């Protein structure tokens, strides 16, 4: 079973990634790929890749609200009794996964980057310790939960134009006495460059070592006529606005080329750019995880390389 995430109008790409994997596992283990859809049930029409859509609608579910989703999902799990529950490893998964592990009494594997069925057993690969260690673990028992890193499974495998059976599930009464409420939704600030629309990005990380040094890479971005983007530490330090942040809690980008300087490649950053067509990474640490997704690696100092690039591009 996959917990669907959506904006109210559109099912998220991550949901399709999970659904594709659910279909694969259902075929291997013998079962169905079901989607739990909370909120407006007309979104079921976007879930052609599912065998069954379990729909729960209630005013408390009109937006994502942790307690409402948790109550609804607990009720659905008790009724449908899936073998495996799949959720994203983003905010929703971080809210619900571990709580449901306790409430549903099911082992949970978090930070999952791989899931396979082996003779009736579900085996997860998870990345921990900043991506430095991978763990291969069995979700033993009749039920399990996996929260999956975004961008790892192909979304296209979860899309389809079938007609799933839609089961209208009664909203549990707990939804009428929640202890939390959504007061306000703050949308991301627009008005700045949309880095997700750029053909190419020049991206900068902690290695830039100071706001004053940003102009070095900005010059390259300008010379190439493309926006400057960044990893989280640069944005957290206030050197660039949030709209430039590439990564799990920023934006996902898929440009034709991604040139990054001084970015080590923490898993949360890789999640935001690993599917770029051409990745050229510059980092003086040859062991930096960014090199695991890069197509080309440069270990020269960025403060030497970037000016040399500017000269060649302009000259």
């Amino acid at each position: 079973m996959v917990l669907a995430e959506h904006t109210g109008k559109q099912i998220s790409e991550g949901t399709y990634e999970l659904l594709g994997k659910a279909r694969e596992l259902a075929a291997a283990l013998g079962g169905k790929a079901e989607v739990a859809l909370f909120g407006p049930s007309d979104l079921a029409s976007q879930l052609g890749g599912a065998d069954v859509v379990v729909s729960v609608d209630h005013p408390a579910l009109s937006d994502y609200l942790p307690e409402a989703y948790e109550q609804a999902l607990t009720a659905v799990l008790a009724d449908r009794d899936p073998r495996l529950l799949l959720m994203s490893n983003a905010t929703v998964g971080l809210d619900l996964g571990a709580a449901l592990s306790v409430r549903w009494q099911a082992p949970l594997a978090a930070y999952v980057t791989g899931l396979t069925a082996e003779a009736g057993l579900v085996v997860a690969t998870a990345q921990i310790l900043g991506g430095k260690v991978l763990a291969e673990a069995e979700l033993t028992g009749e039920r399990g939960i996996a929260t999956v890193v975004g961008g790892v499974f192909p979304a296209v495998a979860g899309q389809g134009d079938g007609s799933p059976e839609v089961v209208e599930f009664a909203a549990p009464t707990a939804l009428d006495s929640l202890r939390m409420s959504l007061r306000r939704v703050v949308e991301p600030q627009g008005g700045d460059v949309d880095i997700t629309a750029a053909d190419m990005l020049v991206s900068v990380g902690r290695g830039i070592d100071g706001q004053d040094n940003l102009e070095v890479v900005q010059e390259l971005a300008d010379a190439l006529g493309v926006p400057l983007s960044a990893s989280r530490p640069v944005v957290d330090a206030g050197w660039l606005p949030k709209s430039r942040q590439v990564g799990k809690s920023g934006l996902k980008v898929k440009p034709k080329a991604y040139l990054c300087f001084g970015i080590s490649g923490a898993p949360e950053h890789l999640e935001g750019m690993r599917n770029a067509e051409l990745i050229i990474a510059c980092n003086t640490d040859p062991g930096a995880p960014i090199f695991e997704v890069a197509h080309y690696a440069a270990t020269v100092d960025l403060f030497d390389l970037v000016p040399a690039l500017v000269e060649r591009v302009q000259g």
Partner: protein
Amino acid sequence: MKAVPDLVEEIELTPDETDIDREFLKFVLNEWDSQALEEALLVKDATGAEVVAVGLAEDPDIDQALYTAIAKGADAAVKISGGDGSTRTGDRAALLAGYLSSEPADLVITGVQAADDLDGQLPPMLAAHLGLPHVSVVVGIEASGDGVTVRQEFTGGRFHELHLTTPAVVGVQAARQAPRYAPISRIRQAMQAGGLRETEAAPAAAVPGLTVRRMYRPQAAGRAQLLTGDADEVAAKIVDLLRGRGLVKG
């Protein structure tokens, strides 16, 4: 508050490769717990609330972390024993839930996650054991009315402002400001004054766990082709690559 392996260091595996080898690892305080403590102190600054820092006795250097919390402004610190030394988050949550059932707090604040959270994250597990409302990935907490208002962060810069009644559990992603600094002298003062309360707790029933088959270091994908030469030669190669794709004029 929790100790985790320092990620700057090389991580070794145990001989049977089912876990990381903790014996020679350097441990540091979980950075998200550091953010959680700062956010707790900000709530204290605004409301005069009492902050109690809590850690598990088996964590390396936990005394240091707890005294540092006191030096930063926590009113008290408690070291909890009673578990079997398991480092699984599920088992830690069960022990902490046992403690919190006998010594409840209005608001339990902890880091949203830790780098070694293979089996899940602490805040939702605590909340589930205790039957409390919870919100994670929080970047700001303010007392309001009969509870708190929190800011929950989503991908792409979107936020939700939620109100929840207390008692509740909050998983902090980042505090509203960088964690404050406690001078070593003040930490030493706290150590000399003592006052770390030690207590034993009975763990709640933990969740069935994962069976870890093995842990391993990721193989470098091997596909990154190293561009050799000095900066100028590397620059020439990069520009060629971009030109070949029509991304640079000329």
